[in-house]
């Protein structure tokens, strides 16, 4: 029901929205919860386990009941707290966790089965028989688990992530936060002020009062106006600081577009990483419910929430309100309701010494012990001493006192301290370096306490920043906080602690009885605190009940660990931009467009995109194209872009010495103009990478790495250089991106290049020479990864596309053309050249038959460790070739024919396979125990995944031109 003349909503701006298929009206400034309450909608959801009818409990992000699904154009967001969702024109929301309609939820049968659904029900029930685990229990549990539902489609919404830096981060904009922000802001320090709600002011917007002689709302407006005018202050409304992390880093979730109709490019949410030198935690406190029988009916709300709905939204959630509270502060709501003309049925104050001033019945020393009204509260039962009586009421405002919102102070493993005086946990000072809790978050519950502590914390930060400022703290109420701790009213029925997960006082007692006495065990056994609200409403009361049940004190019982995030953060926001192509950078070759123009499917090679094959008309499968390309290279000439290989320019008098140290073989003796294959080990003796290095000048080398390990090798070289020889005369830098490089391979390669360059090419195998391509300076290498006479021609990257098109045009006049990754792979397998499929991080130089490449004349990285027992010898799996008449697969394992196939009889495995059009057989490379001594043997290749069981012949891993005559031609 809306009350005239109350609230901060804009009554000139009506807003229409839809809930569970019905249209409603609210105002700009309303939340979904306040607008529904204004429309007298009390039933908004069903509880998780018992499917009990539930209404709005709170007015903040801790809401456990009013969780709804918001339906957008491209997404459906479950578990949206109606208390946080602002209404906007066209908002569509629906209730969740029901089977059938919200009023007639078929799963409400669970409520009648509650005697069987006690704590640990799952653990006890779904244990046996074992045969039911997968077939019956899992589908059953999956059906019941989870809250809300998704659209099942990709969320096409925009999400954002961002970084921010400041001197002082102020979390919360109640009196403490505003005072802190004002003080720090006036000093000139860079301030970020985060407020979870859409309006600044915190409880001042709900509780009224005066500050410095003016109404609190006016003071808020003045301070906000001043802060807005300060260029060094950034105000972030709708932003929840969700986590405190190491070294002044805070996570925060901003609701950017969730309160508006969706618009292209407008982010729904933004996840901020804020780095602050100082932080002031002014997050306030959370009012705690009281556990009594049937305390979960729609219409039973927190007293502070009733006050917020009245003063901030001009809404009264009932016609006849009752207040059940144990603090003086909470009773103010009764007085405000009365002055607003709302009927107050009674005030029930459990404190025996409580005053009685209100113009309504006040029952001192009394407790609510039961309630009535299945779909909404109709009445309560009150006990005072030995007497019980009924009160008719449709709204019960309850308060069991306040818990400081100290969660962030525990995010780095800090433990809060129990305060007997406040009957609450308060933050442990210094638990998060640089973060100071103030105001209600630190147990200072009066407005005066908030203002002074907020000011003091900001002053300390200002001084630490070397700044000066003088700000007067205005006067405000300083009412003492006086309460009688009341966690649970004694009774036999179910009294809810955790509304969201349906955990009652009985469950906690049962947990204690069954031996789950540690608060962490109780939590997991009962699931208390494990719902979306993470126990914000129930943690302290639950452990108080546990303490009572185990005969311990609350301080001794302790709390569970509060971990980030404080409120749920969507993965979409945290990983904003990281979906699909945004997951990692894409690296494109200069030949990319030319390859795509020819219809080549592009495949990922690390971050690079490389052509898989170049289909010709009439070819139906990739294999047909691949076979043709292989034969083309073997018989004519093929062109492939090999620019993805890592290239490192190494210079200096000690360059050769450095290469000798990082490679197993010697490079200092390499003549200028020559190229050598090099093998690089990790310090533990396993192979890191291989590649060719060219000596371009006396003190100048060019190292090539594999595509896969380019970054890894750079990091390794940096480590070796900086850790062991930083004083050597050597410097190096990646030039991978500087050169476009193309393989020209095949018996007609030389003719092609001679024609193209306009002069006869005469380079010995494994050498390099400077060339001019037109006017462009380039390099020509004679190296081969195909086994044919091969060259690689390199020009500065800007000319890459032009060179590729030229080379293709020439090749095609000679019966050649481009070849892709598939053919490149077949060519190298036929020749027995290894890639990272073979040097996969578990093989040694000995395993790949290159132990003779480890020079005995010098030290190198990995040399010593490679000699350790177990890293060489016949017990190792060694590189072999495999030949078969039927298809074989990489990943298959090898066995002796006739033996059983299991782990103990495993003889090795296959790393690379292909159909070889050159040899006319299936070829493989793999590792076989003592393989080099077993050439000619037959082995059994088994791949359970692909259903292969094939007999192969073990051979030398070089199937084509074993003498290398073509290479050197």
């Amino acid at each position, binding site marked *: 029901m809306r009350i005239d003349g109350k609230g901060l909503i804009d009554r000139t701006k009506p807003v229409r929205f839809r809930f569970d298929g019905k249209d409603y009206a609210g105002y700009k400034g309303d939340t979904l919860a306040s607008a529904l309450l204004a429309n007298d909608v009390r039933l908004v959801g069903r509880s998780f386990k018992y499917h009990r009818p539930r209404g709005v409990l709170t007015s903040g992000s801790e809401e456990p009941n009013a969780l709804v699904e918001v339906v957008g154009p491209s997404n459906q967001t479950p578990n949206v707290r109606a208390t946080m969702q602002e209404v906007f024109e066209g908002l569509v929301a629906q209730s969740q966790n029901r089977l059938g309609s919200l009023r007639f939820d078929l799963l409400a049968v669970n409520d009648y089965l509650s005697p069987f659904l006690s704590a640990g029900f799952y653990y006890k029930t779904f244990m046996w028989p074992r045969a039911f685990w997968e077939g019956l229990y899992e589908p059953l549990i999956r059906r019941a688990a989870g809250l809300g539902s998704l659209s099942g489609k990709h969320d096409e919404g925009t999400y954002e992530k961002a*970084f921010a830096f400041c001197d002082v981060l102020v979390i919360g904009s109640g009196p403490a936060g505003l005072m802190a922000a004002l003080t720090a802001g006036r000093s000139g320090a860079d301030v970020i002020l985060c407020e979870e709600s859409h309006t600044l002011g915190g409880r001042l917007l709900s509780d009224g009062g005066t500050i410095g002689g003016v109404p609190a709302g006016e003071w808020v407006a003045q301070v906000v106006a001043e802060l807005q005018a300060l260029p060094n202050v950034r105000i972030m409304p709708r932003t929840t600081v969700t986590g405190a*992390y*190491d*070294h*002044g*880093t805070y996570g925060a979730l901003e609701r950017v577009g969730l309160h508006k109709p969706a618009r292209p490019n407008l982010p729904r949410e933004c996840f901020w*990483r804020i*780095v602050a030198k100082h932080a002031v935690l002014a997050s306030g406190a959370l009012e705690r419910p009281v556990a009594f029988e049937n305390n979960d009916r729609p219409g039973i709300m927190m007293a502070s929430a009733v006050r917020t709905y009245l003063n901030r939204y001009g809404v009264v959630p009932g016609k006849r309100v009752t207040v059940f509270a144990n603090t003086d502060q909470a009773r103010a709501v009764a007085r405000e309701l009365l002055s607003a003309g709302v009927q107050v049925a009674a005030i029930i104050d459990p404190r025996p010494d409580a005053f009685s001033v209100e113009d309504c019945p006040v029952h001192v020393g009394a407790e609510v012990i039961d309630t009535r009204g299945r779909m909404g509260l109709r009445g309560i039962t009150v006990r005072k001493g030995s007497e019980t009586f009924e009160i008719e009421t449709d709204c019960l405002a309850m308060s069991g006192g306040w818990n400081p919102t100290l969660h962030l102070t525990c995010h*780095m493993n800090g433990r809060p301290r129990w305060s007997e005086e406040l009957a609450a946990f308060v933050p442990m000072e210094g638990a998060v*370096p640089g973060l100071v809790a103030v105001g209600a978050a630190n147990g200072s519950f009066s407005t005066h306490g908030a203002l002074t502590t907020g000011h003091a914390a900001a002053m300390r930060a200002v001084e630490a920043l070397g700044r000066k400022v003088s700000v007067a703290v205005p006067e405000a109420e300083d009412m003492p906080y006086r309460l009688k701790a009341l966690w649970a009213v004694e009774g036999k029925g179910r009294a809810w602690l955790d509304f969201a997960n349906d955990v009652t006082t009985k469950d906690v007692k049962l947990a204690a009885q069954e031996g789950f006495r540690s608060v962490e065990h109780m939590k997991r056994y009962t699931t208390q605190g494990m719902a979306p609200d993470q126990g914000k409403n129930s943690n302290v009361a639950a452990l108080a009940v546990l303490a009572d049940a185990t005969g311990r004190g609350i301080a001794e019982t302790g709390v569970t660990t509060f971990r980030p995030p404080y409120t749920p953060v969507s993965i979409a926001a945290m990983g904003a931009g990281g979906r699909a192509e945004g997951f990692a950078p894409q690296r494109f070759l200069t030949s990319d467009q030319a390859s795509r123009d020819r219809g080549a499917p592009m495949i990922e090679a690390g971050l690079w995109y490389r052509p898989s094959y170049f289909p010709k008309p009439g070819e139906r499968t990739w294999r047909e194209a691949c076979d043709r390309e292989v034969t083309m290279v073997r018989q004519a000439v093929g062109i492939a872009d090999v620019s993805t290989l890592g290239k490192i320019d190494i210079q200096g008098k000690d360059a050769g010495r450095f290469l000798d140290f990082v490679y197993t073989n010697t490079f200092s003796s390499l003549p200028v103009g020559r190229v050598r294959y090099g093998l690089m080990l990790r*310090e*533990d003796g396993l192979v890191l990478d291989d590649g060719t290095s060219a000596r371009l000048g006396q003190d100048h080398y060019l190292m090539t790495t594999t595509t896969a390990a380019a970054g890894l090798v*750079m*990091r390794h070289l*940096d*480590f070796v*250089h*900086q*850790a*062991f020889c*930083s004083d050597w005369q050597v410097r190096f830098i990646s030039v991978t991106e500087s050169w476009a490089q193309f393989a020209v391979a095949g018996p007609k390669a030389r003719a092609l290049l001679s024609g193209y360059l306009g002069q006869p090419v005469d380079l010995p195998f494994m050498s390099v020479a400077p060339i001019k391509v037109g006017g462009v300076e380039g390099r020509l290498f004679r190296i081969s990864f195909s086994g044919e006479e091969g060259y690689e021609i390199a020009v500065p990257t800007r000319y890459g596309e032009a060179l590729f098109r030229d080379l293709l045009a020439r090749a095609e006049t000679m019966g050649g053309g481009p070849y892709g990754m598939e053919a490149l792979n077949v060519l190298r397998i036929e020749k027995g050249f290894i890639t990272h499929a073979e040097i996969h991080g578990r093989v040694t130089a000995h395993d790949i038959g290159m132990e003779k490449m480890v020079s005995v004349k010098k*030290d190198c990285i990995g040399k*010593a*460790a490679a*000699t*350790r027992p177990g890293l060489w010898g016949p017990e190792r799996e060694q590189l072999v070739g495999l030949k078969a008449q039927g298809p074989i697969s990489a990943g298959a394992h090898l066995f002796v024919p006739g033996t059983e196939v299991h782990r103990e009889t495993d003889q090795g495995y296959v790393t690379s396979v292909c159909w070889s059009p050159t040899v006319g057989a299936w070829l493989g490379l793999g590792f076989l125990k003592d393989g080099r001594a077993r050439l000619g043997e037959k082995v059994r290749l088994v791949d359970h995944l692909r259903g292969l069981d094939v007999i192969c012949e073990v051979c030398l891993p070089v199937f084509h031109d074993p003498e290398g005559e073509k290479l050197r031609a």
Partner: protein
Amino acid sequence: MRLTCPLCGERDRREFYYYGAEDYLHRPAEGAPLAEWDNYLHLRDNPAGVTKDLWYHEAGCSQWLLVTRNTVTHEILGAELVAERKA
């Protein structure tokens, strides 16, 4: 987590690659017994408290850093360039 690179200044942890303990800097001399290599490569302390380890400023200046930090409090006590470290 933030690390202060002696060259680049204070940076977010995402710019760094973690390698391992300082021990990697003390490479045994050529010909050292295998037990010494085993120790160098594999045997590590796991202190609750102050430790020194190696981080690579991969997205920054490409320098290796020797970082002194506390594994209990997460406090960073200092970082120096491996290339310019004292002894």
